[in-house]
């Protein structure tokens, strides 16, 4: 029942963490719920809080807050992209 979570760019820097293996707690079944759970860890995790402009990907595809999180998924959180 674990997922892999990755953090990129300024978010990775703010969290001091590039990623983690995460055991899904009960009640966390969507991207939005996962983000809320992580933000609730307190400093510095409020960098994932509601007011922050953070995007998510599920299994290497852009994802919306309502998209599901399933065991074995690779979930990524990051700021809006700035390539090109």
């Amino acid at each position, binding site marked *: 029942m674990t997922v892999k979570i990755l953090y990129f*760019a300024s978010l990775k820097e703010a969290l001091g963490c590039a990623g983690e293996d995460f055991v899904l707690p009960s009640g966390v079944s969507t991207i939005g719920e996962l983000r809320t759970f992580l933000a609730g860890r307190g400093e510095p995790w409020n960098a994932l809080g509601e007011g922050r402009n953070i995007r998510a990907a599920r299994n290497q*595809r852009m994802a919306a807050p309502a998209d599901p999180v399933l065991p074995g998924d690779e979930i*990524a959180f990051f700021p809006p*992209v700035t390539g*090109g």
Partner: protein
Amino acid sequence: MSVSVQQEDFDAGAEIAALSAGRREVGAVASFVGLVRDVSHGAHVGAMTLEHYPGMTERSLEEIVDQARARWTLYAVRVIHRFGRLEPGEQIVFVGVAGAHRGESFAACEFIMDYLKTQAPFWKLEETPDGARWVDARESDDSAAARWEQ
């Protein structure tokens, strides 16, 4: 191999030539090269580092190319995006599109750049005299991508 994500530089001229080589139905090659500027929001930029999300990066670029191919009749498409540390004047990105006529080649090339700017997981960290700073996403990039959905 229409998409590459790489640290090395690229040869835009060779890429443009390859897009029409052996394809005598090609009448129009539109291309774009993005470069590191030495100024950004008023500050001098000594260099920048492009971080990306390995695995997702190539896939997202391939999906953008697929979308372009679904919208227009294209004979060949090439996208190259670099990562790592780059100095002003260095090339960042190449997009080239070969079609029959110029309208579709221009449109597809610009479409790919607009989507790449909002969908491909790259992030720029600039080195300025005040230290390193992450580049903020521009709203104008969102609106540039949104116009293709009308």
